């Protein structure tokens, strides 16, 4: 058991740190200042470009597509050093972290050549177009429909939701139903969608805080060429699983990345002499603090597994459950100690209080995560599935009937 870098890792870290030291003045601030969002985004794109040129983006991408061909430990080293330097990381975490690897795994040579370079340098930012209003936990239940025309092109209609960055993305990776007459996992296909195509409409979706952290995206007779298909017609579910695996990996390594930590929740209590001596406050702080510290070491364990070639399983999803619940306990505690002033909309605490309920469902509800872990990790028998083997069109009809 060793928490320290090997000599090679230490050398890599030193190089990363040196580069960041030299270039930190070129970095934009982490959060947009009041005012011009376009200018801010441009600065973040430029910064990602510099990181990519320095080899600090796409760390785990293969060399032949412009990556560094390194491992997860190096990726985490880069994350840690970027965080320590107090500069922002890459802008397009979703593209580089999840969608790029999907194209690398399933895309055609042409797709790789066309899309990966601009993605890595943030010349083109990407968004993930999987979730739909009617298909939440049941991702395969999507209804967006792409119909094949006689000329080999596709016509897309439907709606996506919870789409981060859609309002400035150049492309989206989209899952659509191409055959409703087979069981639901079988009739799906993955597409690359230009976000400026005619018929694409993006609308901000405001969260509890009032900020539009996500978007809804509407598709109205959007025409897609035959070469927009990624991974083959009807193979959309398998292609999407690759994205989801990388999503889990990003979350598994990023438990501290959400900005919640034992230290953050300790600060306001340490500043309050009465609260810091109150047994109930201390119990709550001790419990949530221990949870956050556990998460740090769960991250190290995940990394150890990755470094020895294992892929983290659904159990790393449990880290998300712990993160959300400990953060809720933390904000509850802080607001109890500080009182109504913590609920001022401009307070970091009010922001967190508003943000956490949505985070609970993001990336899979806690209920679905527990199901998955119970079945895949503990080997417990699955729920009876009423939708197995039934054509999607028939399923929908049944649903309408049941709620009528």
């Amino acid at each position, binding site marked *: 058991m060793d928490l320290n870098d090997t000599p090679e890792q230490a050398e890599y870290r030193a190089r990363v740190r040196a580069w960041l030291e030299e270039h930190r003045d070129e970095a934009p601030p982490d959060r947009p200042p009041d005012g011009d969002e376009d200018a801010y985004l441009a600065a973040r794109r430029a910064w990602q470009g510099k990181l990519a040129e320095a080899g600090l983006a796409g760390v785990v991408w293969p060399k032949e597509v412009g990556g560094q061909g390194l491992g997860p430990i190096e990726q985490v080293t880069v994350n840690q050093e970027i965080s320590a330097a107090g500069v922002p990381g890459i802008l397009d975490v979703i593209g580089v972290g999840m969608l790029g690897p999907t194209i690398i795994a399933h895309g055609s040579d042409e797709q790789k050549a066309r899309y990966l370079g601009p993605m890595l340098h943030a010349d083109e930012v990407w968004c993930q177009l999987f*979730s739909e*209003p009617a298909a*939440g*936990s*049941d991702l395969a*239940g999507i209804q967006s429909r792409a119909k094949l025309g006689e000329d080999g092109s596709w016509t897309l209609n439907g709606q996506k*939701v*919870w789409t981060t960055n859609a309002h400035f993305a150049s492309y989206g990776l989209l899952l659509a139903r191409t055959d409703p007459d087979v069981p639901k996992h079988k009739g799906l296909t993955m597409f690359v969608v230009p976000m400026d195509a005619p018929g694409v409409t993006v609308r901000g*979706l*405001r*969260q*509890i805080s*009032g900020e539009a952290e996500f978007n809804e995206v509407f598709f109205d007779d959007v025409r897609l060429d035959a070469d927009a298909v990624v991974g083959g017609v009807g193979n959309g579910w398998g292609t999407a699983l690759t994205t989801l695996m990388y999503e889990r990996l990003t979350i598994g390594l990023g438990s501290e990345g959400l900005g919640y930590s034992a230290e953050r929740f300790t600060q306001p209590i340490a500043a309050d002499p*009465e609260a810091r001596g109150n047994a*109930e406050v201390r119990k709550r702080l001790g419990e949530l603090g221990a949870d956050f510290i556990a998460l740090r070491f769960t991250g190290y364990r995940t990394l150890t597994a990755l470094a020895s070639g294992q892929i983290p399983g659904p159990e790393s999803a449990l880290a998300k459950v712990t993160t959300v619940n400990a953060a*809720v306990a933390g904000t509850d505690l802080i*607001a*109890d*100690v*500080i*009182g*109504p*002033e*913590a*609920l*001022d*909309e401009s307070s970091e605490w*009010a922001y967190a*209080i*508003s943000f956490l*309920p*949505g985070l*609970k*469902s*993001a990336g899979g*509800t*806690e*209920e679905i995560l*527990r*199901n998955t872990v119970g079945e895949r990790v503990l080997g417990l028998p699955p*729920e009876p*599935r*009423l*939708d197995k083997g*039934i054509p999607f069109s028939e*399923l929908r009809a*049944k*649903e309408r009937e*049941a*709620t009528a």
Partner: protein
Amino acid sequence: MNLSLSDEQELLREAARGALSRHETVSAARDALEGAALPDLWPMAVEAGWPGLLVGEERGGAALAPFDAMLVMVECGRVLAGVPLLGHLPAAWLLDRGGWDGVEAVASGERRAAIVPAQPPGDLDPGWTWDPERGKARVPAGGETAHWVVDAPGADVLVVVGADGAVSVVEGATVQAVTRYDATRGLGHVTLDGAGTPLDVSAQDAASAWYLAQALLAAESVGAVETCLEMAVQYAKERFTFGRAIGSYQAVKHQLVEVLRLLENSRSLLYYAGWAGESGPDELPLAASAARSVAGRALDAATRINISVHGGIGATWEHDAPLFFRRAQLSRRLVGGTGGATDRVAGELLAAA
């Protein structure tokens, strides 16, 4: 032994629900977060006779009991109505007890009152405490500004409970209106310059006013829990995933039943608080604190579970669920806090042991 509502109480409740249904209070709660003015529901309250609910008949009131006022608060809570009764009712009750000259105008609602309350002595703390800068009662009274006073903005008459439980009437105090997270809740920082008129009530009366506020807040919370449960149950019946309504899954079903369990416990304690407010003054501190404690926990759970049963959509601006969540977050930290009420339950039990 009979805990059923009287016909009059059923009527009072139905009338309240009917009157409130003529206003778009929930969407007003959302608009108010963006700066829109809240609809003024005071005329409706005046017409319904709520301002004088707890004032004697000979002074123009309805001479009803705390439980009746709680029934009205449940209805207000159901629709997040911004009716300033939480501040007014205990104030009006104290003014009536103290035989204050102007009570008729307060009972009729012509003038609106608000209480600047203080927490009565407990088993550990022999002094009166009040809200300083936090929503908690832990600093001895005597500061110049009372923070987070519910319904203070716009009140014509403030009834101030001071150190040692002495009560005075203040007209024309400086009130800085503030809003925090739940825009339906009027809050004010009240600057007291000591120029009040003493009100002739006992320290026991001042204490009862505090506990009355706890009971009213508990009732209001129960109403909000009812709505959250109804919303979540409805959605759980309609929303399908993996070929089944989500309410058929135990994970969802059992959470909704947990909300029901907390709701039923809260309702039971409303009866206790109502009974104590009318017939068992010695038990009022325990009864009202227990009601506040359990209803506060229920509100917290119900508003969070309502959002999570709805999934992502439940955490969006356009949805009603977050408005109830905002209500819960602020209520939990007002008038001594849910935690303070729980502590008082323990204190009362320990003092009686």
